[in-house]
């Protein structure tokens, strides 16, 4: 998957970003989804509260895969999700989308995506959203 950033970053930053994305993508045990369909699903299902590049009712999603949980700059997270720890991986996102309240009771999000194929596609799209400043 061509989501690793080029070495145009300061070296340390590049390493951290690359390591996070590598860990997130290589640990993906889910079947790969269709990112193009995922974009449509994302806009339809997630777009009420989320945007790729701006915090709204929910946090922005660019770079979410591989990102430390509850770390989008400027977004005020619930205590429930702050306690989760770790980073967002495709597997964790898959569980999250099945039931946010089961993952983090008291979180702000109640919306679920019940269809596994839709979840895979949405997650494939989220994987494609490289962090700001990163390039293919």
């Amino acid at each position, binding site marked *: 998957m061509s989501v690793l950033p080029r070495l145009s970053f300061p070296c340390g930053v590049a390493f951290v970003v690359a390591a996070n994305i590598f860990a997130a993508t290589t640990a993906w045990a889910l079947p790969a989804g269709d990112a193009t369909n995922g974009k449509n699903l994302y*806009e*339809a*299902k*997630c*777009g*009420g*509260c989320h*945007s790729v590049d*701006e*915090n*709204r*009712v929910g946090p922005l999603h660019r770079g979410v895969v591989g990102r430390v949980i509850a770390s989008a700059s400027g977004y*005020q*997270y*619930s*205590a*429930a999700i702050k306690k989760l720890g770790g980073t967002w991986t495709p597997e964790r996102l898959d569980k999250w989308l099945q039931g946010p*309240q089961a993952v983090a009771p*008291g979180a*702000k*999000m*109640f*919306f*679920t*995506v019940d269809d596994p194929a839709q979840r895979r596609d949405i997650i494939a799209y989220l994987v494609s959203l490289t962090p700001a400043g990163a390039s293919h």
Partner: protein
Amino acid sequence: MTTSAIEQDGRRATARRTFLGGAGLVLASAGTLAALPALGAEAQDVAIMQGALALEHEGIAAYRLAGGSGLLSPATLKIALVFKGHHEQHRDSLAKLIGQAGGAPVQPKSDADYAKELNLGTLKSETDVVTLAAKLEQGATNAYAGQVAAISDHKLVHLFTQLCSDEAVHWTTLNNALNKPIPTQAYLFG
């Protein structure tokens, strides 16, 4: 106030145990206690309403700011103001119920915040405005449909189906204005 207040309000509401006037969920006797939802359900319903209220605030701001942009023709502006009025009525219903449950309704953000979050500076034409509005209405419809299953109080479920239906009508109208086809696959939302 930001959406971070959602949980605090929910917790406050749980402590007060007065909910949805007229819905029958009040503390009166052991007999009525048996009809109450499990502990936490009430707070969860309030939290869901707070999220919905934040959405309605955003929708109102979008129509107000776009309506004042000068990009809309009189006929389109007229429709936009009708939709804004619907969102204001949704806002009032949700805020009232949250207040009755003992919560403090989430407040709208500033116009500058909404303009940034919705990227309103990029809108250059009526089509741009209608396209953005259609996306927001579609998102709101899905947000409501996708949360109904988490609501405990049946009267609140009814309200959410009403909110959802209104947003679906908005989306359909806007989608038609953009000459976009009606999706052939059923279950358009949720």
